[in-house]
């Protein structure tokens, strides 16, 4: 246990039959589960006792009741999920499809790198949300604008990561393949690509998190539907339970996509235990 260094936790860890043992036996992170319960309980209490700032905030119980009563069976709620997911997937996948090859080219072709890198470096610091107005002017539909902004969010991250990945390939790995008689195409396929997979991995993990940030913000500004829009509508219509339902849904959606990406990456790089 990493936290065993703190004085007070040492005893807890050493205590026979503690959470460590329970976790080992059941395979469940009981500490984490307890923290979630404590968080929800604390939130409920703050709302009940009308703590400072919590006067207009709905409690978890109220939100959950509203969710079960109205939203769980409401088609439009699940359509919000679907709309947001579709945008995330479209923007994310597009970013990988264009960004990975571009990163590979930039990493392997010095001329191309010199040509394109300054442009990338200038565009990269612009937050995806700053692209919203231009995007709306440029694309014929709001749907395309949102997908474009989501794409921007993941695109630069993957390009830079793949580019760095290519440039840190171990020279020995390439030399050895040359000694063994492999041609350029084979070296690319069997050595360069797998070498870059860990960097792609990092780019995707960071990218999927950013795409959710971006898609929600873009939906709030320009969306007709989606989880971001749902949350915003809750606010403008003074139904604060909807704000909570929206936020928690976004949390789950983001967690789900990250888990999916990390599962996929694990399958792609089985040698990384």
């Amino acid at each position: 246990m990493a936290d065993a260094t703190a004085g007070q936790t040492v005893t807890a860890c050493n205590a026979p039959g503690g959470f460590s043992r329970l976790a080992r036996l059941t395979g469940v992170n009981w500490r984490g589960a307890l923290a979630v319960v404590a968080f929800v309980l604390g939130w409920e209490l703050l709302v009940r006792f009308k703590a400072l700032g919590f006067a207009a905030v709905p409690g978890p119980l109220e939100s959950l009741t509203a969710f079960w009563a109205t939203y769980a069976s409401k088609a439009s709620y699940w359509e919000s999920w679907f709309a947001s997911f579709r945008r995330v997937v479209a923007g994310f996948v597009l970013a990988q499809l264009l960004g990975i090859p571009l990163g590979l080219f930039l990493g392997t072709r010095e001329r191309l790198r010199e040509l394109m890198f300054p442009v990338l470096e200038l565009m990269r610091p612009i937050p995806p949300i700053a692209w919203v107005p231009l995007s709306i002017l440029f694309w014929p539909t709001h749907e395309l604008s949102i997908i474009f902004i989501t794409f921007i969010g993941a695109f630069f991250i993957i390009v830079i990561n793949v580019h760095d990945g290519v440039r840190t390939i171990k020279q020995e790995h390439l030399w050895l393949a040359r000694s063994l008689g492999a041609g350029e195409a084979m070296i690319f396929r069997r050595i360069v690509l797998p070498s870059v997979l860990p960097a792609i991995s990092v780019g995707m993990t960071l990218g999927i998190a950013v795409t959710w940030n971006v898609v929600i913000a873009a939906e709030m500004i320009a969306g007709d539907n989606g989880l971001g829009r749902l949350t915003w509508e809750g606010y403008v219509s003074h139904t604060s339970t909807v704000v909570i339902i929206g936020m928690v849904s976004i949390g789950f959606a983001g967690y789900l996509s990250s888990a999916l990406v990390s599962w996929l990456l694990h399958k792609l790089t089985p040698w990384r235990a």
Partner: protein
Amino acid sequence: MMMQTSATTGLASNATAAQQAVPVSPLAPRRRQGHLVVQGVSKRFAQRDSAPAEVLRDCSFEVEPGRLTVLMGPSGCGKSTLAYLLAGYLAPDAGSLTIDGMPITQAGPDRMLVFQETALWPWMSIVENVMFGPLARGDMSRAQARQAAEALLQKFGLVGFGDRYPSQLSGGMKRRAELAQALINSPKVMILDEPFRGLDVMTRELMQEYYVQLFEETQLTTLFITTELEEAIFLADRIVFMGTAPGRIVRGLEVDLPHPRTIGSMTSERYLEIKKDAMATLIEYGAVSTD
């Protein structure tokens, strides 16, 4: 570690007509081949903010066929650069490098280099790493390559580890897998660049004995690079000493200890004489401090 010669005999039928010039089995005793000649080689490396660094100056030496030549010198004297030149990864600024009279112009499976740090590809299993060479060149079918690889893994005490990834093997096992990866190509010369650096003392000694046995068995022309004097004398038929800044060849020393070498070789009087002689050279060229 025991050597099993029987494991290799089954490979004889795998050789194609094109390979007749090289030994049939990766582990069969070599005909005397793989004569490396380095003649007047110099190498500079461009540096970003200063004048080019002179790494090697007018280096000349030979690696005689069927012998184990050790290249010894202080860290940073350009030993690895010489290895890369011989492997054909780099080109010299001046001088020539030849193998059996042919100029070395590019990398090739006749000169296999075992790198200082493991160069096994982490994304391939051990057996895939070993099979890579013959498959890349189309020398063997997949089945043949697999059979040859398995035989070598058995020889190197790696039975049952073929399907593991390199990260799942110990340092010594990785080194043995790399020997298999090189030997499956029936190289004319093995170049080992401080191959046992970073291994613990026990494993290192085992690996030295291991390589000596392999060498006695195959007579595979070897250039072995090291900074360790004991290792050098234990392994070498001949030691070539390098000086530093810029790297240059300072002396050749014949090591006439009898074969086969064992740990016992290191207690003989002749061993101590050679060691004393070698120490004098190292001290003269600043490879060891005098205190």
